[in-house]
């Protein structure tokens, strides 16, 4: 058995991967670890230098001039070098608006969830609650601007509101205020009604958090309502499980009873493609989340692994060894119209589509021995190699099409340290940055829909578990704790 087929099988058994990608454009170039990150762009240094100006100036600007009053044109003048800072956001606990005894529990769930959602968003600098002025803020009349926009809270934004249970109904009113703008502070005002349960409170908190993130995050929808899917062996078999983005609500989805790997949720969230060991070998199976059962999908023969949805949901790419050598194939989402797009000796696995254009595919090829990451047009032309050394697997393309995140053992082989870590690469420049450093094997990264987060599996805590982090490698958090959980995949919205 040659080298390349050995790793291929290793991976197949272990769990193949790749994932889809989503967008991550945040401060990628943060200089992480001098030893591991030889190249960083000047971007960040520069930003730091000019950070002094403060985001404040951001807006420098002004307007202007438009001397022709009839145009009534609105102008914004602003520039770079003004420092990019996270928005300071204060979130006092919501106030109870009714006397119902159920308020206490529901309020706690709501407040905790909302705080976590905003804290996890990656675009806010949450003001510590110990800085808040005394007294709850339940409605706009309660807002004392001076006590919020000056020290100690010195916040730019204030989210507040009230929540009340009456009978079986839950009513939530929430506001987002720009407290530095006393004359027209309101950015957002929302009212929600739902059932008076903890789950509903959690959902409502997610919705409100997403509204805030959508406004202040530049029109990118928040991820608080997104889901993730992964492989868990908790039930004795490796089955596909699902959970909320924050690790809540973990539940089994499939009950195939064999070994199921590499779940990939469809862009519209209706179907889940995964590979599973069947009587005839490894095949792609399709599970409908609408029908809650497996639906028909062709069996191609050979070993079929790691399906990948195109962004429009009309195509699936996957690797198949139906002709002997493992190659990348593209089929319609129904499984028809199968086309082979690679034809090289050596294994080709783990495809992932360019989520922005849908016109390129990145995948892992073992044509030169150890697996490396390549890109090509969706028709198989214009093959480019991205990684130049080590053992690189599990590519996932970012939602904005700019980055690939993947797992890499940069120095592979006897005598090499061989840590397996998550790396992110800017495809155009081929500059990369190491995101994880904490030991263990880190693999199977997948992008969040907003491109600001990455979910991955790591063995740093002992067994294989699911972790998330921001796309710059910060804020790493463990989401699963029981059993063995691997191969996470984040929903598309």
């Amino acid at each position, binding site marked *: 058995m040659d080298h390349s087929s050995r790793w291929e099988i290793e991976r197949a058994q272990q769990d193949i991967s790749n994932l889809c990608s989503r967008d991550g454009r945040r401060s990628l170039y943060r200089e992480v670890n001098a030893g591991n990150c030889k190249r960083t762009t000047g971007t960040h240094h520069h930003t730091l230098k000019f950070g002094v100006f403060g985001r*404040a*100036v951001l807006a*420098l600007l002004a307007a202007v001039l438009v001397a022709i009053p009839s145009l009534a044109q609105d102008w914004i003048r602003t520039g770079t070098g003004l420092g990019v800072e996270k928005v300071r956001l204060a979130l006092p606990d919501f106030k109870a608006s009714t006397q119902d005894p159920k308020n206490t529990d529901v309020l706690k769930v709501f407040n905790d969830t909302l705080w976590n959602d905003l804290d996890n968003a990656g675009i806010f600098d949450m003001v510590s609650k110990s800085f808040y002025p005394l007294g709850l803020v339940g409605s706009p009349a309660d807002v004392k601007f001076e006590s919020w926009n000056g020290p100690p809270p010195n916040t730019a934004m204030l989210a507040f509101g009230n929540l009340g249970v009456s009978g079986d109904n839950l009513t939530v009113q929430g506001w987002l205020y720009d407290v530095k703008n006393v004359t027209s502070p309101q950015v957002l005002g929302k009212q929600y009604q739902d059932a008076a349960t903890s789950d509903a409170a959690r959902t409502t908190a997610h919705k409100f958090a997403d509204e805030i993130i959508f406004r202040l995050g530049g029109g990118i929808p928040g991820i608080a309502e997104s889901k993730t899917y992964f492989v868990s062996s908790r039930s004795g078999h490796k089955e596909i499980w699902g959970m909320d983005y924050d690790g809540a609500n973990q539940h089994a989805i499939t009950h195939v009873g064999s070994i199921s790997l590499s779940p990939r949720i469809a862009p519209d969230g209706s179907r889940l493609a995964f590979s599973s060991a069947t009587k005839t070998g490894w095949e792609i199976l399709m599970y409908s989340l609408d029908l809650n059962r497996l639906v028909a999908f062709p069996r191609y023969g050979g070993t079929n692994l790691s399906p990948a949805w195109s962004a429009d949901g009309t195509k699936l790419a996957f690797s198949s060894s139906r002709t002997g050598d493992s190659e990348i194939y593209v089929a319609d989402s129904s499984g028809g119209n199968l086309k082979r797009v690679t034809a090289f000796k050596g294994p080709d696995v783990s495809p992932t589509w360019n989520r922005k254009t849908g016109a390129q595919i990145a995948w892992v090829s073992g044509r030169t021995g150890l697996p490396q990451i390549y890109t090509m047009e969706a028709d198989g032309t214009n093959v480019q190699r991205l990684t130049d050394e080590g053992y690189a697997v599990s590519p996932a393309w970012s939602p904005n099409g700019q980055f690939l995140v993947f797992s890499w053992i940069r120095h592979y082989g006897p005598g090499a340290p061989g840590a397996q870590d998550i790396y992110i690469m800017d495809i155009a420049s081929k500059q990369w940055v190491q995101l994880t450093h904490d030991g263990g094997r880190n693999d199977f990264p997948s992008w969040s829909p907003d491109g600001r987060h990455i979910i991955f599996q790591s063995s740093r805590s002992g067994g294989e578990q699911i972790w998330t982090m921001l796309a710059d490698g910060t804020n790493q958090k463990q989401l699963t704790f029981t059993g063995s959980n691997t191969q996470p995949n984040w929903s598309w919205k």
Partner: protein
Amino acid sequence: MAANAEIFFEHDRWGHNLAWSLALHVVVTGGILLYSTIASGGRGEGWGAGGGGDAIGVTLVSTVPLPAPQVQTQNVLANESKGLSQSQPQPKPEEKEPEAIPIPEKDAKSKPKKEPSASKRKPQPEPVEEANNVVPFGQGGPVSGPYGMFSAGGAKGGFGFTGGGGDFGTRYAWYVQVVQRKVSENWLKYEVDARIREAQRVYITFDVTRDGRPANVLVEQSSGVPSLDQSAIRAIQRIDTFGPLPSDYSGNKVSVEFWFDYKR
């Protein structure tokens, strides 16, 4: 009694001295007034109004690395830079007029044509007027709203808005910040020629449509470095959306002038 008599005497002397003193005060006061009227001619009272003027320049300059001050003053006084660029356009129209005049019989036709051209140019010349208005900019009345001036991290900056209904920046300062943050994030400096260590500021203008998409991306003032100009344009083009404009904003677009400072 003697004391009384002395006082009388003194009284006369005082009158004398008082007269001198008064005259002197008048002269000094007059001098000050005269000086102030003469000296204040170029400044415009508006500049001193509120903290706006102070905030704009001083701290920024102090925090800037050596070369920056010039640029910065331009920033701060966005109007000022306009003034400069406007002053250049002005001479051009003048030159054309002489050319037109020489033409003999076509005068009648040429004149009408010139007038339209003048009107076309107006957008630029008008800024000149605005340059005068620059002073009002300092008025700060509307400008000195909460976001007329920022301070954060020890740095300060200001912005102002004029024009009919052009209060977008004051009402929706949070949106302005979103734009600023997003463009900065999407500017990839490695796209700039690696040999360039420092360059003039490049000014880009673009519109943000109602649904938040950037449109009409133009280089307003080139940096003289093509790759820098290009990277700035790409930074804007790379952005799909800034998020829809605030729902209670009545306009259907906002124009943005964004500058990029490059320094390696």
